[in-house]
């Protein structure tokens, strides 16, 4: 025995006092740590006033156990108590120290015993924690290795797709290229047209609008003539527009000459010519590009090509339309035919552009031309000769058949270029995504080390570079992406040739290739979401274009019939086969012809519209009390098929006359 009597034990108090609990709490531990005071086992030993010969081994033993803080503290208390009791017996500290044993060995034994003392649940949690930690470590190692592979991936940029886009026109002589003439003519006209619009036409329209609001009456004029490409004798803008054309007769002639050249000849480039002047960029600079670079590694991605020529092409069509309408009012049929012919030439040039947006601009230009033909015929039914009608019909049919389908090979180039710049190349069409892909596709993050964009913040950089390799973990192989993308374009193009009732389903099926991928698929094929063009809308526009063209050809045939027979036919069937190969079909009523009625005011040609029922040529917008729309097709085919939707608006699509029922003169 040590000499401590049992009597003393009665005086002992329970150690689990509030002070003891507080002493062991993590909060107290942290506070003590912050104040520089020793905590845990160190505190126990420091407060023990043991001689150094004993406090050192006790502390070392406790710390070497590498147990939890509370466990180490408990062991330290017990060792200290043991040493104190030994000293109380009068033993020399050095002798006591010897009995303590070698700290490393004792700590190992104590650790083993202390761990056994833990509950089964505790030990299971510890094992699970260790497993998780090991798993996490393995994951980190794997991710690190993968990240190294990801960042080591280098794309091989071998093909200059901008040069490929320019290849078809590179050998075309300058005198066969339409764009230089379009540009010079457009610039001459547009320079004064902008001044006219800003200084005269728009302020005048604003004043008229204010007057309209005050009178609260219908006002058919809601835009300037230059915006609407529509004008007629007595229009408020007439004299100003006539002055503009009189001043720039040469420019108009340039547009007509350009429209007869075989190719557009615009040279695509990704490099805008810098403008270093002050104020608004002069019109001469807006359409200038620097020549493309030959080295594909220096060349920007093809998807970055600039298309400053598309706006001027539409502008040229508007000028020609206005000029034709004024010439029609003047009875100048030769000029009308030449202007309409030039517009159809513009249509062919734009539609032959090798990408979807160019094609759609061509469709829009053709729409302006068709509207102008319709207006000329509606306003001056007797102006054009039978020969003029035939010439326009042949030219319109030729413009439509010159490029009967959308050309998407630039869209394919764009994807191929992105893949060659964002993915590695295994030489067999495959390859894995690299760090460059997201930057190319407009994702976040720096593409170059000196990038100083939104991720200039170092933490954002760190996060970006840490997370980016995950892209490589999930992104599909280069070949798989290209295959799916091309399948989508192929199916969509095939759908565009279907009849309208089948087309919508086919387009949706095509869209599913890139849209209905599920959560995992949409992540694996994320470049498709950024690159795939919206073919549904494009096909809808294309089909409307086809319908309007067919209707316009029918209207030209109706007037040719009227020239020959001094009356309009009782039905469209009478036009076949001499003037039309077939009666045009109603896109909203497959198998049925467009509706044709003849009144005292002349012929009317219409479709039953998206709701599918015949409203006797009453347009949807008229039935709803709205003014005439700028677009004939307020609702596309997708509102009609496969089933008419309950919210489809009642009414028909009137294709001729486009400005509403003709009023008696």
């Amino acid at each position, binding site marked *: 025995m040590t000499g401590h009597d049992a009597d003393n034990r009665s005086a002992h108090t*329970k*150690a689990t006092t509030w002070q003891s609990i507080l002493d062991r709490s993590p909060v107290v531990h942290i506070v003590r740590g912050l104040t520089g005071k020793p905590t845990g086992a160190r505190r126990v030993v420091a407060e023990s006033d043991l001689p150094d010969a004993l406090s050192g081994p006790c502390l070392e033993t406790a710390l070497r156990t590498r147990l939890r803080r509370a466990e180490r503290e408990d062991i330290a208390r017990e060792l200290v108590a043991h040493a104190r*009791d030994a000293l109380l017996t009068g033993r020399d500290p050095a002798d006591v120290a010897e009995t*303590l044993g070698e700290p490393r060995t004792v700590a190992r034994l104590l650790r083993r015993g202390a761990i*056994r003392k833990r509950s089964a649940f505790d030990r299971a949690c510890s094992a699970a924690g260790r497993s998780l930690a090991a798993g996490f470590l393995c994951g980190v190692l794997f991710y690190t290795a993968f990240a190294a592979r990801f960042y080591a991936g280098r794309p091989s940029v071998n093909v200059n797709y901008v040069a490929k886009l320019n290849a078809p026109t590179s050998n075309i002589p300058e005198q066969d290229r339409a764009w230089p003439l379009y540009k010079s003519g457009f610039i001459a006209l547009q320079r004064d047209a902008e001044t006219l619009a800003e200084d005269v036409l728009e302020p005048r329209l604003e004043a008229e609008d204010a007057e309209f609001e005050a009178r609260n009456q219908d006002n058919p004029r809601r835009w300037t003539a230059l915006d609407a490409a529509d004008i007629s004798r007595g229009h408020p803008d007439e004299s100003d527009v006539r002055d503009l054309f009189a001043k720039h007769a040469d420019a108009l002639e340039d547009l007509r000459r350009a429209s007869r050249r075989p190719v557009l000849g615009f040279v695509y480039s990704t490099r805008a010519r810098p403008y270093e002047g002050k104020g608004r960029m002069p019109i001469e600079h807006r359409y200038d590009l620097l020549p493309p670079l030959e080295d594909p590694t220096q060349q920007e991605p093809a998807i970055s090509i600039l298309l400053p020529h598309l706006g001027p092409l539409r502008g040229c069509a508007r000028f020609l339309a206005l000029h034709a309408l004024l010439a029609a009012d003047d009875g100048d049929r030769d000029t009308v035919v030449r202007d309409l012919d030039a517009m159809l030439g513009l249509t062919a040039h734009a539609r032959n552009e090798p990408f979807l947006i160019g094609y759609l601009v061509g469709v829009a230009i053709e729409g302006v031309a068709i509207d102008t033909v319709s207006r000329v015929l509606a306003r001056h039914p007797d102006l054009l000769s039978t020969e003029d009608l035939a010439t326009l019909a042949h030219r319109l049919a030729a413009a439509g058949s010159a490029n009967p389908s959308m050309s998407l090979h630039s869209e394919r180039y764009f994807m191929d270029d992105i893949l060659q710049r964002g993915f590695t190349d295994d030489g067999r069409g495959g390859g894995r995504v690299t760090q460059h892909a997201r930057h190319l596709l407009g994702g976040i993050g720096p593409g170059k080390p000196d990038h100083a964009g939104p991720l200039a913040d170092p933490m954002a950089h760190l996060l970006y570079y840490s997370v980016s390799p995950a892209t490589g973990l999930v992104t599909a192989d280069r070949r798989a992406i290209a295959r799916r993308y091309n399948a989508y374009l192929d199916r969509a193009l095939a759908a565009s040739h279907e009849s309208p009732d089948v087309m919508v389903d086919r387009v949706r099926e095509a869209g599913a290739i890139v849209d209905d991928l599920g959560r995992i698929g949409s992540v694996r094929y994320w470049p498709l979401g950024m690159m795939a063009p919206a073919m549904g809308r494009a096909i809808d526009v294309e089909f409307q274009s086809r319908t309007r063209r067919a209707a316009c050809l029918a209207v030209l045939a109706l007037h040719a019939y009227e020239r020959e027979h001094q009356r309009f036919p009782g039905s469209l069937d009478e036009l076949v086969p001499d003037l039309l190969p077939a009666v045009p079909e109603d896109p909203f009523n497959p198998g049925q012809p467009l509706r044709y009625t003849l009144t005292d005011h002349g012929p009317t040609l219409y479709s039953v519209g998206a709701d599918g029922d015949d409203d006797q040529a009453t347009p949807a917008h008229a039935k709803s009390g709205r003014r005439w729309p700028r677009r004939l097709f307020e609702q596309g085919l997708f509102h009609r098929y496969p089933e008419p939707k309950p919210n489809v608006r009642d009414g028909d699509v009137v294709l001729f006359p486009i400005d509403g029922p003709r009023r008696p003169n």
Partner: protein
Amino acid sequence: MKIERDMMRGAGPTAVLHLLAAKEMYGYELVEALSARTQGVLAVGQSTLYPMLYNLEAKGFVEAEWRTAESGRDRKYYKLTGKGRRRLDSDTESWNALTEALAALGIVRGAAS
């Protein structure tokens, strides 16, 4: 006299349980008691005692409790549990049988009482 570690591993826990069967004891008290009552034969240092106590505690044979004396001195007291008592009874029987067997062989001089 020093006992082989393997023999100590078998006898030590039984000796500790036996001491605790009489009364609660703290670590140093156990060291002293083992040394004094076995004439040093079963003397253990703290490096052996405390891991042994932790193992006994882990198996539920003993319980430990910190107490503070009026002097402010902390000690951790160990006491036998019911399970420990049953284990002690079992071990005691085993040791008796072993001792008798060894005596029968003439290895030990007489059976333990």
